[in-house]
């Protein structure tokens, strides 16, 4: 105590006692009175008794209680109980980035705490104090210069802010294991960290090492395989197809049966485990892995700001100097301003108008192609391959602006937040396929145009020899006992003459068409500048047109054959003395009269002997029809390959397979052989590596497998064979079923014109004009002003000062 204050105190006490002398004397009298009446001795006695009681009873009881608490800790309070339960079978899980520094330098772990014993390390900051990092996280210093609002990415990760998880390689070893503040040791010889967790804490530890996916390279992790097709189509295959319905019904029944089995399995499950917090957080952790690269980048950029005082606001003189430095930048800015405000919007507007005009024209053509006389009738695109091809191309053109806008939106936010990676792959796949198509088409088209006369003569010759002359020769051969088979001469001649007559007529028609053929070929050649798919689809349509007579022959002969077969079957029943009961759908016995039986048997014999003749003709035309169908199927396969081949995805798979995730896998590291940190006197630890599986090729070509399956189900089913044998009409597979493959990358409902217009106009001034300005300006101010505030649109001079002032204000506040 200071001597001066001692003197003051002394003077004060002396003055007080002299002023209040009567109080002092009264206190003295009270003391004398108490001594006389034995108050002091009684108080001393009480003190002694209380002390003896304390030493004899209270102290032993306290010792016993402490001992009991130590031996049976569960009895001591609710919170203690919980911690103990976790301790006994606790599993500590740490996700650790593989690019974290491994040296012996001290650092601070920053990341997410998903639950008490489940932490995710985003970054390891070196050369900073733990307390400063905590402070910086609370204030937000570490999130400065983030390109986009940091809260978006935090929301994605399921937390509001980053947390300090613990320290790496601390100077002083920790006293005990504390899950709230972990301690890890890293070693340059191993990629894995060693968690400080003594053996007697009864914990087990999982250290999971992950490679950060690079969001700017569009790498990401995903629990489920990436889907290359747009999954917005309803599964209504077989709706248009009577032959398909039976198969569909069977499949539905099978699915129903399986569903029942699954339900039964669910009922049989004995123990149902409620999912724990750690198990539920797996999808969130995958998101955190995906976001960790960008968060780490932001934090590492700001590590230098930790612990240092923030800059004060610029003084007036400094501002003057800075603005003078900025002068040249402002000139550039002015030029940029003129460019963006006057030139760019006009061009953009014109472009948007052009797009809309194109969209309107496309919409009209699409409507024409999709027009049906009645709801059940076939539209033009269901009949013709060319119409279908035009339809696909136009729909792609309609979808591209929407896709592009979706992809542009990606730029306005963090790279790792977006869900549009499959969209990106689809967009560039279709662009690339169209480009490929056009390149192949130009090669093909130039060949066809240069040799149009030769190609036309070849086409004419082939069609003549196969579909007219060949068929004529075949029919003539059938008319005169083919292969020694004695057919009924009269019927064979009748049928043959009939077909020959039609063929002659058709040949006449073809002869009148022949002069136009080089023109048609020329047209096909020119059309191929729109892509190789156009000549292929046109050729496919040409084949169907030029073989129309074979189709009609097939239908006619199939009809005759079918009639004859059904008549023979019913007459056979009569021959046996039976009859078909339509009401009960069975065969009944029947008493026929003699004349009925006689006539029926004669007719049966007649028809039976005529059957081979009809059958031979039917077989000829049916096989011709099948050949044409297979030719068209081959052409359609070529179309499908040109329109839908997953070329871009295949290239990505080779170039960077992490862009096509097909799930995740965990690799358990063998502690006996791998180079892992030593773990003596430490809790049992397993070291696991989290990896991404690339999408398997089977999944990439899934659509093709589905198409093959559908074709097989349609054409190789017993029903179809029965149809062929009995002469019933084999329904061709509906184009819509066949081509769902080609529409799998297009949305089920295309966006309307007005929708496109609103999207284009609302986006027009935003990311197109504004984003470039923002980027240009952001780059300039970024190096001088340290404001982490988001900048949007044109920031004028005054606004700029305002922002800077705000920055200064922020600095003072913190």
């Amino acid at each position, binding site marked *: 105590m200071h001597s001066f204050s001692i003197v003051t105190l002394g003077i004060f006490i002396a003055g007080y006692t002299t002023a209040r002398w009567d109080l002092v004397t009264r206190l003295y009298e009270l003391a004398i009175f108490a001594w006389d009446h034995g108050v002091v001795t009684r108080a001393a006695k009480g003190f002694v008794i209380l002390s003896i009681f304390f030493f004899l009873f209270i102290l032993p009881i306290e010792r016993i209680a402490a001992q009991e608490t130590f031996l049976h800790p569960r009895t001591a309070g609710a919170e203690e109980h919980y911690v103990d339960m976790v301790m006994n079978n606790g599993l500590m899980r740490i996700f650790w980035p593989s690019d974290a520094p491994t040296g012996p330098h001290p650092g601070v772990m920053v990341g997410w705490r998903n639950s008490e014993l489940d932490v995710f390390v985003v970054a390891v900051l070196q050369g900073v104090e733990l307390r400063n990092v905590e402070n910086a996280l609370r204030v937000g210093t570490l999130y400065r210069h983030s390109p986009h609002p940091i809260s978006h990415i935090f929301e994605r990760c399921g937390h509001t802010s980053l947390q300090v998880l613990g320290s790496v390689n601390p100077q002083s070893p920790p006293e005990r294991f504390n899950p709230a503040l972990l301690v890890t040791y890293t070693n340059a010889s191993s990629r894995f960290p060693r968690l400080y967790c003594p053996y007697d804490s009864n914990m087990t530890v999982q250290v999971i090492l992950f490679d950060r996916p690079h969001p700017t390279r569009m790498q990401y992790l995903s629990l489920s395989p990436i889907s290359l097709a747009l999954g917005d189509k309803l599964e209504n295959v077989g709706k248009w197809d009577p032959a398909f319905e039976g198969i569909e019904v069977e499949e539905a029944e099978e699915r129903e049966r399986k569903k029942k089995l699954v339900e039964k399995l669910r009922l049989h499950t004995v123990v149902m485990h409620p999912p724990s917090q750690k198990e539920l957080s797996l999808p969130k952790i995958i998101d955190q892995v995906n976001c960790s690269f960008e968060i780490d980048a932001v934090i590492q950029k700001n590590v230098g700001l930790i612990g240092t005082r923030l800059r004060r606001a610029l003084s007036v003189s400094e501002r003057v100097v800075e603005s003078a430095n900025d002068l040249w930048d402002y000139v550039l800015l002015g030029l940029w301003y003129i460019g963006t405000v006057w030139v760019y919007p006009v061009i953009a507007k014109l472009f948007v108008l052009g797009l809309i005009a194109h969209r309107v024209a496309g919409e009209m053509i699409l409507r024409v192609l999709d027009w049906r006389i009645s709801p059940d009738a076939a539209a033009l695109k269901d009949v013709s391959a060319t119409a279908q091809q035009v339809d696909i191309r136009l729909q792609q053109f309609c979808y591209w602006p929407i896709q592009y806008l979706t992809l542009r939106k990606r730029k306005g936010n963090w790279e790792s937040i977006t869900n549009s990676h499959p969209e990106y792959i689809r967009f560039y796949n279709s662009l690339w396929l169209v480009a490929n198509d056009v390149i192949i088409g130009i090669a093909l088209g130039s060949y066809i145009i240069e040799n149009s006369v030769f190609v036309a003569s070849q086409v004419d010759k082939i069609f003549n020899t196969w579909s007219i002359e060949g068929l004529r020769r075949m029919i003539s051969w059938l008319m005169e006992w083919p292969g020694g088979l004695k057919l009924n001469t009269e019927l064979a001649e009748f049928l043959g003459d009939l077909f020959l007559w039609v063929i002659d007529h058709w040949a006449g028609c073809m002869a009148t068409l022949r002069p136009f053929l080089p023109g048609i070929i020329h047209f096909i050649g020119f059309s191929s500048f729109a892509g190789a798919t156009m000549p292929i689809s046109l050729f496919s349509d040409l084949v169907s047109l030029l073989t129309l007579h074979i189709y009609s022959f097939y239908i006619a002969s199939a009809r005759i054959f079918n009639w004859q077969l059904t008549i023979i079957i019913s007459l056979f029943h009569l021959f046996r003395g039976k009859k078909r009961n339509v009401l009960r759908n069975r065969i009944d016995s029947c008493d026929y009269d003699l004349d009925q039986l006689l006539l029926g048997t004669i007719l049966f014999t007649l028809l039976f002997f005529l059957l081979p003749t009809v059958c031979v003709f039917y077989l000829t035309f049916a096989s011709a029809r099948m050949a044409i169908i297979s030719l068209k199927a081959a052409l359609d396969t070529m179309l499908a390959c040109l329109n839908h081949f997953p070329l871009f995805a295949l290239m990505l798979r080779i170039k960077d397979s992490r862009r096509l995730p097909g799930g995740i896998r*965990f690799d358990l590291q063998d502690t006996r052989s791998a180079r892992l940190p030593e773990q003596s006197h430490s809790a049992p630890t397993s070291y696991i590596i989290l990896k991404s599986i690339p999408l*398997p090729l089977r999944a990439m070509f899934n659509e093709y497998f589905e198409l093959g399956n559908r074709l097989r189900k349609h054409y190789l089913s017993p029903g179809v064979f029965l149809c062929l044998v009995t002469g019933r009409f084999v329904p061709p597979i509906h184009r819509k079923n066949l081509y769902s493959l080609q529409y799998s990358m297009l949305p089920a409902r295309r966006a309307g014109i007005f929708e496109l217009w609103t999207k284009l106009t609302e986006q027009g001034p935003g990311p197109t004009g504004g984003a470039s300005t923002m980027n240009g300006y952001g780059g300039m101010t970024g190096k001088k002003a340290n404001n982490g505030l988001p900048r949007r649109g044109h920031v004028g001079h005054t606004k700029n000062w305002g922002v800077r002032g705000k920055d200064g204000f922020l600095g003072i506040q913190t």
Partner: protein
Amino acid sequence: MQIFARITSPATQSLTTYRPTPSTISFTVSTRPVPRTLPARLLFYLSILVRIILGILALALLWAKWRITFPIEGDISKGVRAELTTWVLGSSAGQAATRISTRLQWRLLIPGALGVLWGVCRRGYTEESLLVLSGLGIQTSTSSPTYLSTATTRFIPTTSIQDIFIHEAFKGFEVRFYLAIVVQGEEDVVVVFPNLLPRRRILEEVWRGARACLHELQPKSKF
């Protein structure tokens, strides 16, 4: 007779359990023979050596045939490529390769070489494993038939695992036990060790281990 029986009998399956912590277990069923005695070990290394030599021989024959059919045009004596070619083909082994490849036709050489390469790359054994990570899920994996591709794995998160059980099924003319995982929302169960289908004794061990490890917070539930 004994040799015949050894060839025709199915390969012996061995179960390896690796359990670094109570919360992480990996079960591996493999038909890979583990060489224990010295001759077996020598034979093992010898087979690897033979494989490598055969593979190099097939590639060398193909390359020699290619060079003989399409010799390098232009400046023959210049260029590193040409020098390398002359050096390799000039050596005694190269001369032998040249002699063999000139005698063999393309149509014999290509399928033969491809067949040898295919045989060299064959793994010759199957290894299937089940990795149980408590708090994360279960991962099944099956090794690929060749050395060229990696194992196919499937990870099932714990939240979507409904049940694990052992059941029996007909396979051909025999009845086999199998360990299956029921995944929520899927029609088909996932069969663990689908190719090897080990014996019931192994399956029971795996089943007990997996059940005990998968759900960490209920260590005392009755199963």
